[in-house]
Structures are given as C-alpha cells and as structure tokens.
C-alpha cells in the first residue's frame, strides 16, 4: 500500500470514529438516561427506538439561525467552537485501538501528547466565555478555567503513575505492559483519573461551568445553531476520549480474556463503551457539586490520592 493511501485511510478512519462514536454515545445517553428515569427516551426519529434522533438533532442545528450577539467579539466568538472541537480530534489520532498497527499515528510520547492537547480545550472555553459579552458566560468561563486548571493536576499525576508503572509514555506501550493485577495496583489512580477526566470534560456532576439552573448555560449561553452543536459534539467526543484514555491506561486496552491478536479492537471498543456507560450513569445518579465542593474534592482528595498513588507505584516498581 502506498504511503499516501495508508495515511488517507487512517485519517478517514479517525474522522469516521470522530463522527460516529460521539453519536453512538449520545444516543446511548438518551436511552440510558431515559430508562434510568423510568422513561423511554426518543422513540420516533428513524423508526426503531428513535435511533436517528441525533441525526435529526444535527439537521435541526444546521437549519437554525446562527446568531452572534451584537456586543460580542465576532471572530473570537465564531472561532471558539472549532477550537473546542479540534483538540479531541487530535487526541483520537494517537489512541491505539488494537495491537500492532491499529492506531492512526503511533507516537512515542503519546500520553504526554494527549494530556497536552486536551489541556488546550480550556482556551476555547475562555474564548467563548469572554467573547459572548454576557455575564453568565463570563462567570461560566471563569468557573471552567478554575476547574480545568485545578483538575489537570490530578489528571496528569494519575496518568504519570501508570506511565511510571509501564515504564513508557507510549500509549501502545502502556497497554502492552499492562497486567490484570494492575487493576488493583492502579485502582486509586484509575478512580482519580476518571473523576478528573469527568471534570475536564465538564460532565455532570462537574458541570458547574454550564450549570443551567445558575448560569443559564454558562459559556454556551449565547451560542446557537451549528456552533452550539459543535460544543455539544465536543462534549460527547470528550466522553469518548476520556473513556478511551481510561481504557488504554487503566483497563488494559485491547487485552481481553481471549483472542487479543484478532479481537483486540473489539475489546477496546467494549471497554470504551462500558466506561462511557459509567459516565452517563454518574450523570443520572448524582447532583451537581457546589463550586467550593468541587475545588475541595480536587485539592483535598484527588491530588493527595494521586500523589500517594505515585509513591505506591514507585515503591512497587522498585520492589519488583
């Protein structure tokens, strides 16, 4: 296969995943959330149990008027949704789906790349918050910035723990080094990473930046139509990314009970969707934290736990 064809194929695959996985997660969220609340969820669009609901939503968003408030900073306002979406697309490039070549772009320091790029998303939040010329947006943006900066620390620390355990920063390398007993050894790091990841993508119960009962819709208040859809899409790609990272770092990626070599991609996808289900489950079960509880959880629980995990990881590594 010539190089350019392979490259095109890989990028097409990533873009395909980028466009379908969030939709699947979104539809799952519709359905799971509905059933957890004793409802049925969407039932009409597409016929069978409303499978096409999100496509219909997308069509609706496309048709809606694209409003930019008069007082807004136009270019910044219009650019923000794209900036919110782009980092996640880049992250999907390096997440390994299966053993060997099943990754769009194997990267030596994949973990570092992922953490660095995910961190860029906060710029988009600040852009949209400030450019909206709306006090609720600004409040939401400031909340988001404080939250994202704070939770980046436990996120990176817990990821560092697993990188330390595996002795590599490459995501594929981490999966290869993973052993089932790491589930126990790295359990605190996994919990911290998952919770911090939830906060990074601003999912309930960590959705203070968009808290609709307090801030209208936070930094997304002024957005309409396609730009708003981009923000929503970013949220769902965020779920996929966090679930995939949790899978790859802590759940052994493509390692399964059997058939790793051929069914690896299936194991990865299964685990990703299982984690995504937990993300949705948490959203339904827990109420939103208060702003001070959020910071308290970060600095008084997650950071110490992740530091302790680092010490534990180092101790076990030295002992082995």
């Amino acid at each position: 296969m010539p190089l350019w064809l392979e490259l095109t194929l890989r990028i097409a695959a990533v873009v395909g995943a980028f466009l379908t996985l969030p939709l699947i997660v979104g539809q799952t969220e519709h359905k799971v959330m509905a059933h957890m609340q004793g409802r049925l969820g969407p039932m009409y669009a597409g016929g069978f149990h409303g499978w096409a609901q999100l496509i219909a939503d997308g069509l609706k968003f496309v048709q809606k008027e694209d409003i930019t408030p008069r007082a807004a900073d136009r270019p910044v306002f219009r650019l923000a949704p794209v900036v919110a979406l782009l980092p996640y697309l880049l992250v999907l490039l390096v997440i390994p789906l299966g053993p060997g070549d099943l990754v769009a772009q194997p990267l030596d320091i994949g973990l570092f790349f992922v953490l660095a790029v995910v961190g860029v998303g906060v710029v988009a939040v600040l852009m949209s918050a400030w450019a909206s010329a709306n006090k609720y947006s600004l409040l939401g943006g400031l909340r988001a910035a404080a939250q994202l900066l704070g939770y980046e620390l436990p996120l990176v620390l817990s990821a560092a723990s697993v990188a330390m355990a595996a002795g590599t920063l490459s995501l594929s390398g981490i999966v290869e080094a993973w052993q089932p007993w790491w589930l126990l050894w790295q359990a605190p790091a996994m919990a911290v990473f998952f919770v911090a990841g939830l906060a990074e993508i601003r999912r309930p119960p960590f959705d203070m930046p968009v808290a609709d009962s307090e801030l209208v819709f936070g930094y997304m208040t002024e957005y309409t139509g396609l730009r708003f859809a981009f923000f929503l899409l970013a949220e769902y790609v965020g779920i996929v990314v966090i679930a995939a990272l949790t899978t790859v770092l802590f759940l052994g990626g493509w390692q399964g009970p059997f058939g790793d070599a051929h069914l690896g991609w299936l194991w990865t996808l299964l685990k990703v969707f299982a984690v995504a289900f937990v993300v949705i489950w948490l959203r339904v079960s827990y109420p939103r934290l208060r702003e001070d509880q959020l910071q308290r959880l970060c600095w008084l629980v997650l950071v110490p736990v992740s530091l302790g995990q680092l010490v534990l990881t180092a101790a076990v590594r030295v002992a082995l």
Partner: protein
Amino acid sequence: MTGADLLLLALGAVAVGAGLLVVTTRHLVRAGLYLVVCLAAVAGLYLVLTAELVAWVQVLIYVGAVVVLLLFAVMLTRAPIGASDDLDRPGWPAALVGGGAGLGLAVLLVDAFRWSTVELPEAGTAERLGAIVFGSWVLPFELLSVLLLAALIGAIVLSRPEIGASPEEERR
C-alpha cells in the same frame, strides 16, 4: 531550501507575526489569544527541530496553563470587549530599543550562520531527555522543584491578604 526549511520559515513567520500582534493589539483578551498562536507556532518550530518532548511540554505548560492563567487574570481585571485606548504609553523609545535589539541580534546571527546547513540531531525523545535530566542535571532539577514550591507558597500568600488576620477577621 528543503521542506523542513519551508516549514521553519512558515512557522517562524507565524510566530513573529502573532508576537507582533500580541504587543500591538488594542484588544486585551485577543493579545492573550495571539500569544496562544505564537506559542503554538514556536512549539511547531521545536517539533521541526526534533525537540519532541519540549514541544509538547510547551503545549502543556504554556498553552494549557500559562496562557490560561494570563487570560484568567485579564478577565478578572475586567477586560472590556473591544479596543481599549490606555494600554500603551507613547512608544518611540520602545520601538527603537525593541527593534534595535531584535534586528541587531538578527543581523548578528545571520552573519554568524549565513546560509549554512546542519544535520538535525537525534530526536529529543522523552527517554533521552529524561536520561540527561536525571543524569547530568539532577541538581538544577531539584532546585527547580524548590523554586516551584517557593513560587506556589508565594502566590498563595500574595493572593490571600487576610493571612495573619484573626479568624474572625477572615470570616468577615
């Protein structure tokens, strides 16, 4: 001119252009956003120069944290939307000194290197840099951690003016 040269040229132009916008724009927040572009372009330059780890550290620390902190501060100090008139002082001496420094250095460096070419060194991967940091440069590294701690404590002390006041005072 190789492909790498062209990339360097383009990224350098973006970096310098965005940098110029940072220091000349009259929109406070946009200055921060141009800074993002500039820093990202510099990260791109690092990548072309095979300094992988440094590039991603640049993205993680600079774009993800430093610029966000700066933007945060801009918003906390009530930046207006749109142009502000009182950002600059009269700038001829500044232009003179800045232009002089930049162009002077540029001329010096051009004179030193001309149009010579060099081979790119081995990539600065995490493994190699880690070996060097923890091999030859351990002491500075440890000093840096102390510096960071000091900065952390300093920032906390500075941003809490109530420290030292009685508990009742703090609760007020």
